């Protein structure tokens, strides 16, 4: 079975033996000249950045950058409010919130 399969594969691999060269289509030079005169150069296609795939990638990158900046802003706001809370709790513990003057502290009750 394997020998048969190998023979089939060998036959396929040898199927291009003796292949003749394909001829270029008729009037190839005429069409080439016409293309050159029209100014359609080699690889003439739309600029890279205008291709849909690249436009899509650019949009995704911009959105990700926006999201990153928003996230960073929210994080820094969270940090600020956490710090504020901490300071307020310390102030409350030491009664620093009230407007206490030195004279109040020295007054006898």
């Amino acid at each position, binding site marked *: 079975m394997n020998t048969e399969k190998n023979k089939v594969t060998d036959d396929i691999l040898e*199927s291009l033996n003796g292949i003749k060269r394909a*001829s270029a289509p008729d009037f190839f030079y005429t069409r*080439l000249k016409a293309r050159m005169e029209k100014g359609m150069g080699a690889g003439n296609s739309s600029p890279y950045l205008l291709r849909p795939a690249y436009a899509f990638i650019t949009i995704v990158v911009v959105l990700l950058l926006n999201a990153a900046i928003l996230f960073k802003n929210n994080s820094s706001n969270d940090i600020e409010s956490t710090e504020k809370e901490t300071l307020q709790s310390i102030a409350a513990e030491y009664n620093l919130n009230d407007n206490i003057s030195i004279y109040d502290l020295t007054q006898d009750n």
Partner: protein
Amino acid sequence: MNEKELIQGLQKGDESAFKYLVETYQHMVYNTALGIVQNATDAEDVAQEVFIQVYRSIHSFKGESKLSTWLYRIATTRSLDLLRSKKSKKRFGFMQRLFGDGTEPVFEIPDFNHPGVALENKEKAALLFKAISQLPDNQKKAFTLHKLEDLSYHEISEVLQTTTPAVESLMHRAKQNLRKILEKQVK
């Protein structure tokens, strides 16, 4: 016109030299492109681009290799570029079909029949070309140049700008890979 005179004529922008170049090498360039892109229209397109590139960049040709070597190099590179660009369009087409309304065309590569293959070998050759299309780029280039243009390993090494042993290795791996692919197809 010998090669030196031809190159001088091309560098002077002589149209008769360019016509001579095209008429001398058109079949060689077309056949090389056809073997890789496996489509007659695309092969003609690639062949035109090869000659346009030669026309534009003949001044940078230093004459260190033969003109035919340079033409083979441009032809194989341009052919692979076209295949890559078709592949990426196919990927984008898949995305379009996902988000589209289902009316977008589906690009499938049909079976390729090379016009130079004998009638009794056409079916087997079509299978082989399908397998060749799945080879890595360098193996594809080496195998196509050897089988379709009958280039020796030494000549192929000049086109690929590598060594003859490296081409031997490429051909060995190409045949191994082709066997694996064909064995799956021939189950």
